[in-house]
């Protein structure tokens, strides 16, 4: 069993252990309504984490994901309020996301700004734009319901599964396939593992990075559209700290921050873990601020743990080779 499989297995076991823990210690964790709610939360984080994992694997980072979700969501709500059909609203959010992702890639590739500063600053711009585009009455921000039955119907569900969960899982499988079975996916891993040697072997670095950033933007757009439909409104706090949660999900799922390892399934497991954690903590009556503390600690522990894991695996490989 190679180290990648072991890492995915660890993430999977973490999810199972957490599920069993909350399942046995709290009531109604495994009830249909709770599971359906949990999966919906996971889908929101998970769709963004999916885009984030693409960017991280290519050796970059996108701290503007929350801002992108906020702006795309506000545009989507405006389109919905204008009476557009659902498909136009979703495509609009995706297009806005794609444009923002493309702008991020321009900042990183063409202006050569360090990815985390470029996307952090771009995140300020996007969430600021989202704030400008929120609904107002007499200059005050109001929660205006989006009266558009066609659009809000995408927040519906089949049985206990919301549509967004289905979309999330399909997208995960597509990205997983792209990552493991296509040339573009391979180039992404090569670029993330060692940029210089990847470039020297003919990987078109700028193109690969650009596509990954655009994927991240599109994912944020999709996540935002479904959330706007579910909440029936768009507020400036829509994407608040989502990039943080998405990064946490990626890290728990074994997507290493330095790039070049991890995959979409890991991001899916990580998102499930994050959603379960907040769901279970709510059942324990732990409020949102403590959850933020837990998530902060979790990122540190997971990144530190990953570094140790890589060291152990390297030592094992060396021992086997000698």
């Amino acid at each position, binding site marked *: 069993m190679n180290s990648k499989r072991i890492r995915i297995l660890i993430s999977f076991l973490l999810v199972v252990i957490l599920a069993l823990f909350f399942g046995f210690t709290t009531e109604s964790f495994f009830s249909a309504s709770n599971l359906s709610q949990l999966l919906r939360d996971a889908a929101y984080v998970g769709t963004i984490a999916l885009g984030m994992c693409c960017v991280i694997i290519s050796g970059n980072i996108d701290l503007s994901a929350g801002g992108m979700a906020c702006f795309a969501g506000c545009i989507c709500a405006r389109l919905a309020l204008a009476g557009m059909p659902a498909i136009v609203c979703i495509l609009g959010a995706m297009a806005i996301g794609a444009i923002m992702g493309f702008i991020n890639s321009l900042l990183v590739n063409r202006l050569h*700004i360090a990815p985390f500063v470029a996307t952090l600053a771009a995140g300020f711009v996007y*969430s600021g734009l989202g704030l400008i585009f929120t609904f107002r009455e007499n200059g005050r921000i109001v929660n205006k319901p989006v009266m558009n039955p066609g659009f809000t119907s995408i927040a519906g569900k089949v049985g206990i599964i919301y549509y967004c969960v289905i979309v999330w899982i399909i997208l995960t499988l597509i990205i997983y396939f792209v990552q493991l079975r296509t040339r573009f996916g391979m180039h992404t891993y090569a670029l993330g593992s060692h940029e210089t040697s990847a470039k020297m072997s003919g990987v078109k670095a700028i193109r690969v990075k650009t596509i990954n950033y655009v994927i991240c933007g599109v994912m944020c757009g999709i996540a935002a559209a479904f959330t706007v439909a579910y909440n029936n409104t768009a507020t400036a706090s829509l994407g608040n700290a989502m990039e943080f949660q998405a990064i946490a999900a990626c890290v728990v799922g074994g997507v290493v921050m330095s790039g070049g390892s991890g995959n979409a399934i890991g991001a899916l497991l990580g998102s499930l873990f994050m959603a379960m954690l907040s769901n279970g903590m709510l059942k324990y009556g732990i409020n949102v601020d403590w959850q933020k503390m837990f998530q902060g600690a979790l990122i540190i522990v997971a990144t*530190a743990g990953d570094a140790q894991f890589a060291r152990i695996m390297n030592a094992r490989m060396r021992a086997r080779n000698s």
Partner: protein
Amino acid sequence: MNGKAKSNVSAGVRIKGFLGSKWGQRAVLLILSAIVMAIFEPKFFTGGNWSSILLAIALYGIMACGMLFVILIGCMDLSVGSMAACAGAYLAFNWVNGGYTPQAFLTGLLLGLIAGVIVGLLHGVLVAFLNLPAFVVTLATQYLIYGYVVWYTKGAFIYPTRLNTGGDIFYFIGNQRFLGLAMPVWIFIIVVIITAFILSKTTYGRRLYAVGGSNRAAELVGINTKRHTIIAFIICSLCSSLAGMVLVSMNMVSGCTTAQGYQGDVLMAMMVGGINLAGGEGDISGAVFGALFVGIINNMIILLGIPSDYKDTIQGVIIIAAVAINVYQSRKAAGIISPAKARRIAEKAAKEEAAKSSQ
């Protein structure tokens, strides 16, 4: 004649050189903003307005001095805002609940500074010993500290009342005037002097540049890079704690929203000040100028009546523009050209070669 021509040329070159230098660019930026304000809002130049700008500059400046250490070694601290909120909450909470006594003030002050040391130590150890990326660690601790502040203050705001007796130390550090300048400005000046001294006159400061320039090379010549990293993070957190306590005293209110989003302002100050994010480049004048510029910009946004919603957007655009210019200049200085440009140059050379050989 020769000498005359030389001096004529050098005058033009000197102006050009000045505009190209960092001081020239800083002067141009300041003059531009002064012109904009002179046209749109002359109130900008009143003494009352400048004393409020100075207060803002002092706050950003204290944080920027700390951040300078961290950026010099090529790292980043995104938790400065939360750290300030934490230290401010310690001070205000102890001051109010300790019965407004000097002992209570001292307890709060010490707790705030100790919290700064602990957080800095945590950052430093995680970054230096576990090799985690600094921005991930500090992004995580940003939320960690924020959550802690909410728990510590129980989500409520603390409003210390102003004592009308003489012993109001809490009010003193944020509002008292001394020789025409408010206390925060004096604190800022002291912090700047200490920072400048450490960076230019001590072994630690000079080695910091070596660590930032190349961590590996610094390690090979025998510098303890891990210790330098940890100390830099501790100084940064300490400066944020100090700024947070000053801020709480200035506003006479403390809570989880204290200094929220200040990391963006401080980052903007660093970038406008020309501090290289890759590390090893930048000095105290950059941090001070950056803080000055951020103070002026934030004041302009208010005076020009721009809705505060636009502040984030403006801030983001300025950061991107400033970093892009920094990167462009350092790439130009290092002689790095993009592959596309290299190809163009090669093609041009090949064409000239072909033209020459055909002749």
